[in-house]
């Protein structure tokens, strides 16, 4: 390989990650509105079609959307290898996902087969294209280490979740293979603990020490965590085909819970030793996420240790809700406030440097720094709204009287997040114009 062509500056254009990141919170708003329309009875069981549909809007439209965008920015940096045909891949993935998710989600919720078929096909196309691109990029990478291992295993987990999801969807449409309920659990564990948890861990190895200046993750932990979680997921998949005793499955589930809890504890411990004393909103979002993860695990374990708890009904949903909204959404939300301001600054700065190189346009315009891209005050307000929404939605699982206000808060929090990110994009547009040669 020609080393001089090793690419260390393949920063994709701003719109590549930004289109994913600005669209994502709108899907959280859509989730809240759909749930409001469906009403609190949707929470009575995890098998309610409304709940399944709305959840897919949240996990595909919000979580996967941001993660796809972030990966396109991340791969050139940590792997030195961008997605193949990155601009085209990005446009097509975003288009298919943004279009397919509402059809799939609303189709599942209203049991409209045509919408599930249409939305499912579009979403499968988006996810498959992303997986293919990410695997090629990872295979081309010369980098090694825990982050790369974590990214590999996360993407393979997404592949598992996608295949199982497609299988389940075709079963729902009455044209698939047999549909044992256990398969839903396997689909769920690969999506949540493989794709989401492993990707967050792989990114955390880089960004926790980086942004908060903590010590590095202990080497043994960083090396072992993703392979251990992945192996446990493989073992937990076996009972779908082999008849394993239930205690063995439970034991493996407990091992998985301990591994996930260890990630939360190690990260909180690292953050407690951070060198940067100023706690910004991102630090609070991270802490919220990690504590929610611990709470989710504790409640899940409690449900297996205390017979008769939780009572049937909405409370059964508490661990998964804490994982999705408490852990994954909080951390992603916090990261957006680092990624978007930095990218806006980076692209404006590159434009200014270009001007300087070509001696044209505006050479020394004082472009906004990271704190000036999105007003810090608005990010703090959004953090408070997120906390209120999280507390409210958890409360709504105990008492349905909170259902409407909590979902309105969730919609408000994500509406404000969209607004804040759009402000970042607006700043870019405005400064981009000012830096143009013709502006002089």
């Amino acid at each position: 390989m020609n080393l001089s062509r090793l690419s260390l500056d393949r920063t994709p254009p701003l719109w590549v990650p930004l289109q994913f990141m600005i669209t994502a919170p709108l899907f959280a708003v859509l989730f809240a509105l759909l749930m409001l329309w469906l009403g609190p009875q949707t929470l009575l069981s995890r098998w309610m079609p409304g709940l399944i549909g709305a959840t897919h809007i949240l996990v595909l439209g919000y979580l996967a959307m941001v993660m796809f965008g972030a990966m396109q920015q991340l791969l050139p940096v940590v792997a030195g290898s961008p997605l193949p045909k990155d601009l085209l891949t990005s446009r097509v993935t975003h288009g298919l996902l943004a279009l397919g998710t509402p059809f799939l989600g609303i189709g599942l919720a209203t049991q409209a087969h045509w919408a599930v078929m249409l939305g499912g096909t579009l979403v499968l196309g988006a996810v498959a294209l992303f997986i293919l691109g990410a695997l090629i990029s990872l295979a081309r990478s010369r980098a090694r280490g825990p982050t790369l291992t974590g990214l590999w295993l996360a993407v393979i987990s997404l592949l598992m979740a996608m295949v199982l999801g497609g299988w389940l969807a075709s079963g729902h449409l009455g044209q698939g293979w047999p549909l044992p309920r256990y398969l839903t659990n396997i689909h769920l564990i690969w999506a949540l603990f493989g794709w989401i948890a492993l990707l967050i861990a792989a990114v955390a190895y880089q960004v926790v020490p980086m942004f908060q200046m903590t010590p590095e993750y202990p080497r043994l932990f960083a090396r072992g965590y993703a392979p251990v979680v992945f192996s446990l997921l493989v073992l937990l998949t076996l009972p779908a085909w082999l008849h394993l005793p239930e205690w063995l499955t439970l034991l493996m589930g407990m091992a998985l819970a301990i591994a996930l809890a260890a990630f939360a504890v190690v990260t909180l411990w690292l953050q407690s030793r951070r060198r940067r004393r100023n706690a910004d909103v991102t630090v609070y979002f991270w802490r919220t996420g990690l504590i929610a993860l611990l709470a989710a695990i504790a409640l899940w374990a409690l449900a297996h240790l205390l017979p008769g708890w939780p009572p049937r009904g909405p409370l059964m949903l508490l661990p998964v809700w804490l994982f999705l909204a408490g852990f994954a959404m909080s951390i992603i939300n916090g990261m957006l406030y680092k990624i978007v301001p930095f990218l806006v600054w980076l692209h404006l700065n590159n434009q200014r440097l270009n001007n300087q190189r070509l001696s044209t346009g505006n050479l020394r315009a004082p472009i906004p720094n990271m704190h000036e891209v999105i007003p810090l005050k608005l990010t703090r307000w959004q953090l408070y709204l997120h906390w209120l929404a999280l507390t409210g939605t958890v409360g709504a699982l105990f008492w349905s009287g909170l259902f409407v206000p909590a979902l309105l808060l969730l919609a408000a929090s994500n509406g404000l997040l969209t607004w804040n990110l759009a402000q970042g994009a607006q700043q870019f547009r405005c400064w981009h114009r000012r830096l143009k040669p013709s502006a002089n």
Partner: protein
Amino acid sequence: MQTIQDFFTHDHRDCDHRLADLESAVADQDWPAAETACARFHHDLERHLQREETLLFPAIDTFTGSSGGPTEVMRREHDQMRALLTDVQDTLARRAVDPCLGNIETLMTLIQLHNVKEEQILYPMADKHLSAGRDHLMGQVRTLEPA
């Protein structure tokens, strides 16, 4: 003998800590401490950048066969850091707390992303290809003082 990866990664962390000290002092509006921290950071950062630009990168260029390859990108990012550090110094001199903190955060993020590329890709590559003359190179690196 210490690897290139270990030495330079350690040097990165030292610079990071100097910058975090500066940030804390500015946030506390402890201006004498901030001036001292800024001078120390400036010295350590410049020493690190020059260790790379005058010693490590030319050595890397010999085996990649070009100075227009990965090291050119790294040199460009070094210049971006120097420009941002000037912004930090300007805002510090004006005692403008918020703009100074914003500039520090931006510089910190730029440095961190730059470090990831070096630590994940460039240093391991350098260790692999420069094993023969490494001891001599690292001897020079250690004693360098910024010009």
